[in-house]
């Protein structure tokens, strides 16, 4: 019984940890928005904006990846 509660807690915790991905999603969307606006206004800067955008997306996505890592840690009892 105690083990089951522990297991339930792990699953719930893993799911809750992934809430952080919402922020990453908003961040990725904002980066793409900014880059696309820039590209639309000045198509010549396409190459520069693309690499900068991917860099920014990577940084904001890293937050979601931390969430994923925490979620894995909970699920698979790594720590």
């Amino acid at each position: 019984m105690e083990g089951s509660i522990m297991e339930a807690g792990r699953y719930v915790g893993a799911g809750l940890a992934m809430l952080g991905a919402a922020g990453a999603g908003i961040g990725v969307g904002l980066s793409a928005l900014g880059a696309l606006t820039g590209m639309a206004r000045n198509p010549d800067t396409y190459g520069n904006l693309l690499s900068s955008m991917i860099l920014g997306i990577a940084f904001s996505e890293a937050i979601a990846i931390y969430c994923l890592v925490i979620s894995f840690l909970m699920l698979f009892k790594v720590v």
Partner: protein
Amino acid sequence: MEALGINLGFLIVQIIAFTILFLTLNAWIYKPMLDMMETRKQKIAQGLEDARVAAEARANAEKEAAKIIAEAQAEASKVIRDATERAESAGKEVKAAAEAEAAKAREAALAEVELERARILGELRGQVASLAVAAANKLVGEALDEKKQRALLDEFFSGVKAGKVVVVEGEFQGEAAEVTSALPLTGEEQEAVKKSFKAKEVTFKVNPSILGGLVVKIGDKVLDGSVAGKLEGLRHSLK
């Protein structure tokens, strides 16, 4: 780590695999590809350079051609101008010759006309003399015999009497003399005139308006022995 499946052995195997791939791809793809890109870039640059040189050469050639054309045009215009000038001068010569010819023809025609006129007047002279004699006979009767009358009339018209010029006096020296009479002189009279003026050349002219006698022009001297001149002098003195 067990649940995530991370294992040091697997990591090492993966690293070995990546190293193999990295070295192989580097040697088999990137190096030849980048070298080829470099070669191609150089070739393209070379081609562009060649094209530039060729374009320059073409521009030079065009300039040269333009120069040659300009020279040729200048040459051509010069030739044309020369030809025009020559043609003009030739035309002028031709024109001058033609004019001279025309003047000569006109002179000849004038001389002929003069001759004709002299001939006609000479023919008239006999008739005029006959008419004058006949009229005088009617007026003065048979006072004068016909021979005398003729001599008088001849003298009147020609100013020459018995082989001597009577109307003008004095010594005449000159190269050429021009003798004008009212009616053409006969050959004897002309001889007499020539004799009395010791001139080399004597030309004879006919001008009926002097009525009678002779007008002689020698050098810059004019001797008026004409009837008209006498009448004029008479009228002058009567005024």
